[in-house]
C-alpha cells in the first residue's frame, strides 16, 4: 500500500511537472531590421532584459542593409522560417497586407496602440482599417545647411522661400572648389522622392489625393521647374548625388566634406552626419523646407516605420512577438539612463536622432527634443507634415517617379516632359495595382 502511495505521489509530481512544461511553451522570436550595428546592440540589450523576465522567449536580431530589407521580407521573411518580427516602412504595408505576409494586431494590442499613439500614425500602420503594426519612428524632412559655407558666402540665415533658396544656392555654388549649392540625391528611391515631395507639399501640392496621382497640378509644375532651374544653372551637380545600397555614398560624402551647401534630408541621418563629421557637425543647422510660390506654410512629407509580425509564424511565436513588442514600445521597458516613462524603443530611436511617435515617449523626451538644435528644424515641421501616400503599388510608383526625376537631373527630360511622364506613369501604375 505504501509502495502504491509513493508511486501515486511520484506520478502526480511528474504529471504536474509535465503540465507545467506544457503551459510554458518556448518561443524563438527573430527580429529583422535594417539598423546599424550600434543600434542593433541596443535592441539586443533590450531583448536581453525582456528575456530575463521571460525565459521562455528567445529573441535574436538580424540586420540587413536598407536596400535589401524588402527583398529579405519578400523572400525568407514571409515564410514560416522567416523573421517573426520585422521593421517596415509604412509605404510597403498595403502590399504586404494584401499578400497576407503580416499578421493583424491582436485586439488588446490594437486597443493599446490606438490609445497611446496619434491617430495619423495609427492610420499609417493600418490597411483597410485593420492595424498591422506597432508604430515606432516618424521621419520628416528639413533643409540641412552648412553654416560655415553660408557665412563664407555672406548668407545671413536659412532661406524661407524658393526665391531665397535659389539665391542661396547660387551664392553657395563655386565650381572652382567643386562646391554645389544644393545637393540632389539619385540611385535611391526615397532619397530622390522624399526631398522632391517635401518641396512639392511646401508648395501646396500633393503626390496622390484619394488614390489618384496629382502630379499634373500647378504646384507640381512649379516643383519640376525648380529642379530644372537648379540643374540648368549648375547649382546642383547630379554627379555628386549618387547613393548606394546602404543609403550612404557620394551624396553624403559631399555634404560631410563641405562640398554641398544645402540638402534636404530626414532627421534619421543625424547619426550618419555625426559619425562622418566629428567636430565639424557643429557647422550643420536645420530649417523648415522653403515655401514655394503656391504654398502657404513650410511643410514636409512624413513617413513612419512600424514593427510587424509574420503571419506565417506559429501561434506561439506570434503571441510571444506581440508581447515583446508591446513591452519594447511601452513605458515598462525604460532602460537605464532614459527619462522616466520612456520606452526602450523610444530610447533606441532617440539615439539615432529619430523622432519617436508614442505619446508618452514624446513627453518623456520633450526636453531632449527641444534642446537638440539639429532636430529643431524637424520638430518645427512635424505638425504641418503631410504623410507620404501609402497605396497599393507604392514601391513601383516610387521607383517610376525616381527614374523620371533622375532623367531630369541628367538632362534627359525637361520639366514639362518629366511632369507629363510622371503623371501618365503614376496613373497607369496605381490603376493596375489597385485591380
Amino acid at each position, binding site marked *: 500500500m505504501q509502495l502504491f502511495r509513493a508511486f501515486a505521489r511520484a506520478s502526480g509530481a511528474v504529471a504536474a511537472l509535465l503540465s507545467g512544461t506544457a503551459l510554458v511553451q518556448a518561443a524563438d522570436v527573430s527580429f529583422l531590421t535594417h539598423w546599424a550595428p550600434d543600434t542593433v546592440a541596443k535592441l539586443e540589450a533590450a531583448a536581453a532584459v525582456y528575456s530575463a523576465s521571460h525565459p521562455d522567449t528567445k529573441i535574436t536580431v538580424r540586420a540587413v542593409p536598407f536596400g535589401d530589407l524588402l*527583398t529579405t521580407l*519578400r523572400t525568407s521573411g514571409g515564410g514560416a522560417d522567416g523573421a517573426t518580427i520585422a521593421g517596415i516602412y509604412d509605404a510597403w504595408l498595403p502590399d504586404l497586407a494584401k499578400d497576407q*505576409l503580416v499578421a493583424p494586431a491582436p485586439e488588446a494590442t490594437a486597443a493599446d496602440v490606438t490609445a497611446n499613439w496619434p491617430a495619423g500614425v495609427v492610420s499609417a500602420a493600418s490597411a483597410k482599417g485593420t492595424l498591422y503594426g506597432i508604430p515606432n519612428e516618424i521621419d520628416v524632412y528639413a533643409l540641412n545647411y552648412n553654416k560655415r559655407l553660408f557665412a563664407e558666402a555672406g548668407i545671413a540665415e536659412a532661406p524661407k522661400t524658393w526665391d531665397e533658396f535659389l539665391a542661396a544656392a547660387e551664392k553657395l555654388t563655386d565650381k572652382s572648389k567643386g562646391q554645389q549649392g544644393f545637393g540632389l540625391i539619385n540611385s535611391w528611391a526615397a532619397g530622390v522622392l522624399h526631398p522632391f515631395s517635401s518641396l512639392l507639399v511646401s508648395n501646396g501640392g500633393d503626390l496622390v489625393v484619394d488614390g489618384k496621382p496629382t502630379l499634373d497640378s500647378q504646384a507640381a509644375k512649379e516643383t519640376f521647374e525648380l529642379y530644372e532651374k537648379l540643374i540648368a544653372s549648375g547649382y546642383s551637380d547630379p*554627379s555628386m548625388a*549618387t547613393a*548606394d545600397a546602404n543609403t550612404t555614398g557620394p551624396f553624403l560624402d559631399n555634404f560631410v566634406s563641405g562640398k554641398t551647401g544645402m540638402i534636404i534630408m530626414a532627421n534619421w541621418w543625424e547619426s550618419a552626419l555625426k559619425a562622418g563629421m566629428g567636430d565639424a557637425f557643429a557647422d550643420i543647422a536645420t530649417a523648415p523646407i522653403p515655401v514655394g510660390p503656391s504654398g502657404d506654410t513650410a511643410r514636409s512629407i512624413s513617413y513612419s516605420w512600424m514593427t510587424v509580425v509574420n503571419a506565417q509564424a506559429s501561434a506561439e511565436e506570434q503571441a510571444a512577438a506581440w508581447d515583446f513588442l508591446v513591452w519594447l514600445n511601452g513605458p515598462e521597458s525604460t532602460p537605464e539612463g532614459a527619462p522616466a516613462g520612456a520606452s526602450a524603443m523610444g530610447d533606441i530611436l532617440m539615439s539615432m536622432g529619430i523622432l519617436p511617435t508614442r505619446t508618452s515617449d514624446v513627453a518623456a523626451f520633450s526636453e531632449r527634443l527641444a534642446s537638440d538644435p539639429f532636430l529643431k528644424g524637424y520638430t518645427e515641421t512635424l505638425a504641418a507634415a503631410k504623410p507620404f501616400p501609402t497605396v497599393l503599388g507604392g514601391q513601383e510608383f516610387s521607383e517610376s517617379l525616381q*527614374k523620371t526625376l533622375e532623367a531630369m537631373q541628367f538632362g*534627359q527630360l525637361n520639366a514639362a516632359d518629366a511632369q507629363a511622364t510622371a503623371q501618365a506613369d503614376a496613373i497607369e501604375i496605381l490603376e493596375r495595382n489597385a485591380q
Partner: protein
Amino acid sequence: MQLNQHRSALLMLAPATALLGVFIIVPMLLTIGLSFTKWSTQTGFETASFIGLQNFIDIFGNTSVGRDFKAALINTGLYTLGSVVLILPLSVLLGLLVHQTLAPGGVFLRTVLFSTYMVPMIAVALVFSKLYSPSEGPLNQILGWVGIPPQTWLSAPQTALFSIVILNVWQQVGYFTVLAVAGLTQIPASLYEAARIDGANAIQRFFSITLPLLGNTLLFSTVICIINAVQVFEPVALITQGGPVNATNVLTYHIRRVGIERAQGGTGSAMAVALMLALVIAIAAIFAFARSRERTE
C-alpha cells in the same frame, strides 16, 4: 544481354536525369507556365490566373513596365557586348604574354591574373565603388596627375554601365587568360617552326596559326563569357542599385525587382523567359556562325 545493358544504362543515368529534372527542367517549365499568368510571388501557385500573352504584351509595350524591361534588355546586351569585346582579345593577348618563354615570370603573371577571379564580388564592389568616387576616388586623382579631367564613372548614366563593364573585365580576364593558355599549349610547336622556316614573321604566325587553331577555345570562351555577362547581378545590387536613371539596370536585377520586391511573379517570369530565349538565340547564332566558318575553311 542487350536488354540488360539497356537496363543498367538507364539505372546509371536515372539519378543524374532525376536531379536535372527536379532542379532544372521543372523550374524552367514552371517559369514558362507562370509567364502566362497573373500571380503574386507571395501566394501559392494555385492563386495564379491564366492571362494568355498579356505579360509578354506588357513587357514589350510602351507603359513603364515595357519601357523599363526594354531598357534593361538593352543594358544587358550592351554589358555583354562590352564584356566580350574587351575580355576575349585581352585574354588572348595576356595568354600569349604568360605563355611565352623568352622572358621569365610567366607563371607568376598567370597567378596574379587568375587571383582577381578568386576575390569575392562583395570585396571587389566595395573597392571599385571607392575607386570610382568622382570627387575623392583615386582613379580621378591619378587622371588629374596626367591632366585628364575627372570622370563621372558610376555617377552619370553615360558612363555608369561602362564602369561596371570595366569592373567585370578586371575580375574575369584572368580566368579567360587561363583558358587561352590552355588553348595555346594545344598548338604543336612544329607548326611555328615550319612557318618560321618559310619566313613568316610573328604577326603572320599569329594570324595564320595561333588564331585559327585557338578557334575552339575562343568559341568556348565566348559562350561562357556571354552566359556570365548576362547573369550579372552582384555589382549592380551592391554598388548602383540599377541607377542612375536605370543606366545599370540589367535584366537579372530588374527581374528581382519586379518578381520579388513588387511580387509580380507573372510579369517577372515573362521577363525571365524572354531573357532565356534571347540567350538561346544568341548562343545558337554563335554556334551557327562558327559552323559556317568551319565549312568555308
